[in-house]
């Protein structure tokens, strides 16, 4: 059997996957003031991971990213529900959010809202769900 040579695909994947990851994180963080947010950010990240799976095969990709995506869903949900429950501690109604301004060394003054933590939960859940669906279907070899 001749091993197929997909040098171009693999090289480009390294490049494109990194751009995709960057764009996904940008979308996640930009969601408050511009189009974007946890859902689309999570989908983009899943697309980037998927590209690596397609170019390098399941075995290699699993070695690079040894993540149990089903646990990722759980973690995402805990974070998302946790931000809602967090408002209980401060005696506020469920899902209340708050924000404050912080000074960062490189970026200057930024507004940080607890909605971002909720978005992070959504982001992780979407990655987990998408990857679980794709990997479950692709591994079905019975």
């Amino acid at each position, binding site marked *: 059997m001749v091993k197929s040579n997909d040098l171009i695909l693999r090289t480009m994947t390294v490049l494109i996957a990194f751009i995709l990851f960057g764009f996904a994180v940008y979308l996640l963080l930009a969601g408050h003031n511009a189009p974007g947010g946890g859902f689309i950010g999570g989908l983009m990240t899943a697309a980037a991971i998927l590209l690596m799976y397609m170019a390098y095969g399941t075995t290699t990709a699993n070695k690079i990213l040894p993540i149990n995506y*089903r*646990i990722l*869903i*759980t973690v995402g*949900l*805990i974070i998302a*529900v946790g931000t*809602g*429950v967090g408002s*209980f501690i401060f*005696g*506020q*109604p*469920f*899902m*209340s*959010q708050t924000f404050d301004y912080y000074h960062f060394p490189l970026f200057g003054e930024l507004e940080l809202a607890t909605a971002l933590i909720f978005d992070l939960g959504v982001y992780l859940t979407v990655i987990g769900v998408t990857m679980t669906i794709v990997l479950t279907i692709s591994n079905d070899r019975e």
Partner: protein
Amino acid sequence: MSNLTILPVLIPLIAGIIATLFHKKLTLVRIFSQVSTIISTIVASYVFYYVIQNGTLVLESGDWMAPYGIVLVGDLLSVTLVLTTNIVALAAVFYAPYSLSDEQESFYFYTFYFLLISGVSGAFITGDLFNLFVFFEVLLMASYALIILGGGKVQLRESIKYVLINLFSSMLFVTTIAFLYSVVGTVNMAQIGQRVSEVNQSGILTTIAFLLFFVFGTKAALFPLYYWLPRPYIAPNPVISALFGALLTKVGIYSIFRVFTIIFVHETAITHQFFIWIAAFTLIFGVIGALSTNNIKLIVAYNIIPAVGFMIAGIGIYNETALSGAVYYLVNDMIIKAALFLLVGAIAYLAGTSDLRKMKGLIHHYPMLGWLLFISAFVLAGVPPFSGFIGKLLILQGAIEANEIIITIIGLLVSLLILFSVMRIFIQGFWGEKDAAIVPNKPLARKLMLPVAFLISFSVFLGIGAEWFYPITEEIGNNLMNPELYIKSVLKE
């Protein structure tokens, strides 16, 4: 603290999420689920007590004012149903380990079970039409997963019907909400009610009312729309059937209660009169289905339909007596349907078949099981000391007050036939000679019967203690007849 309102939704949700972490460790996940369900029941009871003492609980989530944010309204009807849901869940979680195979249990059964409970509680407690849709989807998604759990051939076939019909009605639900939003410009139920009363329910709003009735009628299995219900409900494991039979159709009924007592109450000559006809056909066709089959699980599944018919008759008659009767019947029916499904599951397991013609003389091996079935048949048909009686009595009394004689007669005759359909299981299955083929399997039988006995004793208590429960349902009936009370408590004017 108003955050109490969300707790019956939140506790099962968090428990379901945490249960995914150790879904393969059966002993741990069982104990965890049982403890969480007990905690959830205690919290639901406390919320129930709190609402009785202090009146309606309203939570404006995220601290946004009522018509702008999502409100969660724990009024007396909601919290009563949430408490009943938790009682059914409590029986199911203790029945599950003996009914499900280890493999089914380890494949996230408890997660989906908790999500189902969370979705049902959420649907009962929300005060927002679109949020109702979201909670409908939460519970339906969980039910899709539960119906397929185990992957048997029958389950695969029946789940396709189930998913298709529910997807269709959910799409129609969203479309109807879009229509309603374009007319009244809000999805908050209290504000919709207020705005509809301002324009006195013009023609388009009555059309939307019928569309919504069609959606909830599909979910609740009313007369022309019940064809999807019986077979998918008996395909999965008995404990899952019990959760479905007790909870899912009742969410549809609850939604009809809400929508047609708060929002669309100005053209009752058209809408509510139509419900009485639908109720009559639902009663008749449901009970014909229950009489037509020899499959004991199917008999119980068909019995859901006439019960739903009684409740729709209650809302159709639309006076205080009938509404409080319908609520009483709703609570009673949630409990007794769960008990019957669990009971029939145990009978089918112990007899090795669910065909009525192949079983006889079970009473020699399992006397306790037989008498539990006997009592639950009486509860279901509404024989006086038991709880089915008071609900039906009030509905029929309301019908006579409103001069609806035909529905009264149909209701009484159908009750007789319901009793007959369930007594057939008792007579053919439990009477007769000893069947040598059945091996006595006492210890497991006892474990299966304990949750059933719990539910039936609760149901008997509900009938005997009518003096305590009737004032509550009477007040619910009063609240339902006066939507301005609900609107005022939500919008705070």
